[in-house]
């Protein structure tokens, strides 16, 4: 149950419990200590008081002056100091026969009576006293919540004249204890009131980065790329390190996912390539025969108009098949010359009419100043395909740019257009044949481009944002033979 509780609550709860335990423990130990000290104080101060009183009482007992003895033991009571001071409840002077000589509670302990007769506690006190040296003061606490008795001998020249018994009710002890407890409880409550919010705040602060991390981790599941940026606290402590590691991990996962996606696309394209190439070969052989046959039929066959028309239709259809198959089947064509500045400019001339038709502005940068060692036909075809696609995608009066350059042994073609963003789903199948985002066209342009780039060991990247779609083709220059 508790183990399932969020750290958001668990840490503040634990801190709060700790605070409570500490406060309670400190309070209890202080109480225990203070009650012990109070008992010692009571014993010490009353024994001192007893000694002083006993000294003064010696004369009164010696001269048998009951009233003087009464005035001596009653002196502390005549001062109104009951509140707070350690004052005995009752003081009794016993004579040497242990009868009451005089007491401050004469009705309870009348003169010359045996106090033990009516008072069981005094009876047990007498019993306990018999075990002590009569000439030394002693403090006796009755069991349970009985009274505390401080007994001091009254002697003259080593002869015991009587005993001074000071009776302290347990109530003063309890009163003291209760008042101290109230004070301690109040202090404890104050401390708790001040500390608890701190504890809760602190706990939450401690838990917060973990919460954030946990939230981010919770989102890792279906897709890494969809995780929004996490505000993970960075720092040297464990949580900070965890955050850094987590971010690192997310980064790697993202790269891995992107790579995997790319590989899937490449694999699919390669499979489709092999498949189409196979079909194209299979189609090409009979196609050659069919074309030969129609050719022969046109030249030497029946000349009636229906047959001629039919044969002509057949030939056109077969030629279209050939063209399509030829488009699917990209083969390295050797013998083409290296790409020159003029080749690139020719391409521009070729696409200009299409661009003007849409009043699109074409920004052109031709960075080829000396021949680049790549088959010019292929490069031109790539360039034409990309540009025609861009012109197609761009709205009227839109803007297209094209940059061709060679750097570090690589030919780089980059085209931009202001067309609509390509949807994610479409991006995955962009380079597959017969896939077209538009109603016109066969959807072979990018397929062909891809095949050519592959053949030339290059790469092609697409990125599409709002109003900006970019195709970048990089082709490694061949080493001059």
């Amino acid at each position, binding site marked *: 149950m508790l183990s399932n509780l969020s750290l958001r609550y668990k840490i503040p709860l634990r801190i709060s419990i700790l605070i409570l335990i500490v406060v309670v423990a400190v309070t209890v130990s202080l109480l225990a200590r203070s009650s012990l000290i109070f008992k010692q104080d009571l014993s010490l101060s009353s024994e001192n008081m007893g000694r002083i009183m006993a000294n003064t009482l010696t004369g009164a007992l010696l001269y*048998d*002056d*009951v*009233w003087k003895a*009464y005035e001596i033991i009653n002196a502390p009571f005549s001062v109104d100091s009951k509140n707070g001071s350690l004052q005995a409840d009752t003081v009794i002077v016993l004579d040497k026969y242990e009868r009451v000589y*005089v007491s401050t509670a*004469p*009705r309870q302990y*009348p*003169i*010359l009576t045996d106090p033990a007769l009516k008072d069981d506690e005094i009876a047990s006190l007498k019993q306990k006293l018999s075990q002590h040296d009569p000439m030394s003061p002693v403090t006796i606490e009755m069991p349970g919540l009985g009274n505390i008795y401080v007994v001091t001998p009254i002697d003259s020249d080593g002869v015991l004249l009587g005993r001074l018994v000071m009776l302290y009710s347990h109530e003063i002890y309890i009163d003291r204890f209760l008042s101290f407890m109230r004070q301690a409880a109040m202090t404890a409550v104050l401390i708790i009131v001040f500390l608890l919010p701190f504890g809760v705040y602190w706990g939450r602060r401690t838990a917060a980065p973990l919460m954030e991390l946990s939230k981010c981790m919770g989102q890792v599941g279906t897709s890494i790329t969809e995780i929004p940026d996490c505000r993970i606290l960075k720092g040297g402590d464990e949580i900070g390190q965890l955050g850094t590691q987590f971010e690192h991990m997310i980064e790697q996962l993202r790269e891995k996912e992107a790579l995997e996606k790319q590989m899937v696309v490449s694999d699919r394209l390669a499979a489709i390539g092999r498949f189409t190439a196979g079909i194209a070969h299979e189609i090409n052989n009979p196609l050659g025969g069919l074309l030969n046959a129609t050719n022969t039929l046109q030249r030497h066959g029946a000349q009636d108009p229906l047959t001629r028309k039919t044969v002509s239709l057949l030939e056109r259809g077969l030629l279209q098949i050939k063209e399509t198959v030829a488009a699917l089947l990209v083969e390295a064509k050797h013998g083409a010359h290296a790409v020159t500045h003029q080749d690139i400019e020719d391409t521009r001339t070729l696409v200009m009419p299409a661009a003007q038709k849409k009043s699109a502005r074409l920004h052109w940068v031709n960075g080829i100043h000396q021949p680049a060692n790549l088959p010019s036909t292929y490069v031109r075809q790539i360039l034409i395909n990309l540009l025609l696609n861009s012109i197609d995608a761009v709205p009227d009066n839109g803007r297209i740019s094209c940059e061709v350059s060679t750097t570090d042994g690589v030919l780089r073609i980059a085209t931009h257009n202001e067309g609509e963003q390509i949807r994610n789903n479409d991006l995955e199948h962009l380079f597959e044949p017969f896939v077209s985002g538009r109603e016109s066209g066969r959807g072979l342009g990018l397929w062909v481009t891809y095949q050519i780039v592959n053949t030339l060991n290059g790469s092609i990247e697409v990125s599409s944002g709002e109003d900006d779609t970019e195709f970048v083709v990089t082709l490694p220059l061949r080493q001059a033979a």
Partner: protein
Amino acid sequence: MRTRHLVCSLGALFLLIADTAAVENPLPQTPVRIGITPVFLDYQTAFLDDWREYLEARLHRPVVFKQRSTYRDIMDMLLTQDLDFAWICGYPFVRFRQHLRLLAVPVYQGEPLYQSYLIVPETDTDTRSILGLRDKVFAYSDPDSNSGYLVPQFQLHAAGEDRNNFFRRSFFTWAHQKVVEAVARGVADGGAVDGYVWDTLAKVNPELTARTRVVMKSKKFGFPPFVAQHKVDDSEFRRMQDVLTGMPNDAIGRALLKRLNLDGFSQGNDHLFDGIAELAKSVPVR
């Protein structure tokens, strides 16, 4: 600096005035020594100061009140001429009659007489006489007191009781007001007290007397008198007597008498104390 000057000047002025006063009202060096006993509320020190000032002004001499804890101490001082006058009880007066001169007798409720009261705690509603206090604790005021000792002793004696064993315990408080305290607090089950002191206490400290009950009032005896030791010279004796008996004649004197709860002082005569002398005769001296 200015302040200091001022203080110095004031100091000088004060000395000058004090000096002039001393010159104007020269008091002889030997003071009149008056012994007082707890036959009245002698613990009222502020009252004593006022009374002393009053007497000094009338006698043109310094006056010293001497207080001792027992009647006997004052009697000893009188007999050894350490005192000139004293306010004592009628009992020692009759015992040492030949060494003393009767100076004045206070007048209380119109006559120079007073009574002894037998008191018990107010919780005791049964006791009707001293005989009801058998085996109880009893408080006397002073062995030389008539009302606080001689009277109850006589009562026991007259009833044929053994005065030494009648009570379980008896003790002296050495002052009448303390007998009232002892009984009020229950230290003693009964006590004998000067009726005048009890009545006066009932006025100044009614809570205390309310905790006691007067069981019995004795017959009337001569009020504790002011006496002079027999060697005091006549003029001094007369002057003192005049001052005391003249107290009702001026406002300050009347105010002081009111605080004493007395009407005044009379010259009195020895026969006032015959009753006490009779008791003393019938009860053997301790």
